């Protein structure tokens, strides 16, 4: 979607007039950043949740809801495990780089002592 298409979507929505103006300004100033898209989805979902609450529809105890929730948690757990592994590898890399650098410094000092004796 282009900026103009998103602005039209906001204009055609059931958001309040003030809310529409705020969002249209943000879209024009910031562009379609990840942060803005996340915030915009959040605003729509708050209205959606309120609408379903008003209708008295609650599916949180249904197997379908629990399956969807479980799938979300599993997906994030897998992503988090991958992230943890990569962070651990990067941290280990820093530790190794520190050890290598300190050894190289020691070698320089040793060589300097040898040179001073020779």
């Amino acid at each position, binding site marked *: 979607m282009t900026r103009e298409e998103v602005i039209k979507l906001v204009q055609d929505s059931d958001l309040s007039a003030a809310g529409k103006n705020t969002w249209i300004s943000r879209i024009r100033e910031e562009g379609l950043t990840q942060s803005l898209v996340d915030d915009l989805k959040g605003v729509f979902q708050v209205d959606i949740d309120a609408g379903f609450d008003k209708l008295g529809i609650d599916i949180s105890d249904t197997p379908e809801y629990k399956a969807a929730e479980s799938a979300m948690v599993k997906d994030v757990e897998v992503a988090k495990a991958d992230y943890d592994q990569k962070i651990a590898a990067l941290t280990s890399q820093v530790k190794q780089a*520190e050890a290598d650098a300190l050894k190289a410094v020691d070698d320089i000092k040793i060589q300097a002592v040898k040179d001073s004796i020779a």
Partner: protein
Amino acid sequence: MGKERVDKMLATARDAKNAAMTKTGNVLGRVGGALRDAFFATIGGSEKGGKAAVSGAVEGGKAVTQYARETKAEVGQIVTSGIEKGNKLDDDVAAFLQTNATAGVDKLNGFADWVLSAEKELKEKAPGVHADILARAEKGAQDVGNEITAAVTEGIKQFNAFKEWAGAARKEFAQKRSDVHQDVLDRAADRIQPFANVADQFARNVLNLPRDVNTELGILTAKAGAAKDRFTKSVNEARMKATGTAELKGEVLALRAEVAKLAGMVKAYERISTIVPESQKVIGDETVDAEAETIPKTVAK
């Protein structure tokens, strides 16, 4: 609750990122300190020199220049000392000449005194031999004069030889001074190079880490966002189905407009979910643009 669990996982991911950053900062500090200390210990120099060892070639160049400047001053001192030594030799030669000349004059005066004394004695004791003695005395005086002349000539010869040597020496100093300067620069660069190598290697291994960590967190955040989206969409769909069932039962007919409005909002949410951010090509996999400014913003949330 699933959403809370997801948020908690993302919070611990941000903590892990911060811990990795802190660890990197500490490592940078330790290695930088070790490099600086080693630089001071093996080469000496100034604080500028210490920083030079850490930050590599550019600052290292300044340290080389500083080191060369100090050593150049030493070379200059050696040259000055050589010239002073030469000047002292000038003085020595002058003193040598003075000593010889004085000795010659003293000798001449002594001889003159002896001649006068001898003449007086001869006049008294042997008047007939007077003329012969006088002739011999004149010859003696001539010999002494020749000795003095020879001594002075020799002194002048030595002085000129020294002057020639001193001139050549000064020329040689001037010639060698620039050679020594370059040699000092080369040797200083050789000594600093190992520090620059260590700093460069270390920088290559470590300095990209903050960016790598940020990228990983950006990827995780994008994946979590996609998972949340899938969840929200399926929950909304299930709710809409439930709404339809309720409507058929005639329990919420009065709220038909509200249902239609909700359906529009759900559809709008789904359309927003398809937006590809302008600075991020692909969401949710390894191809997230590492340069994207949206990643730090996402991280900061």
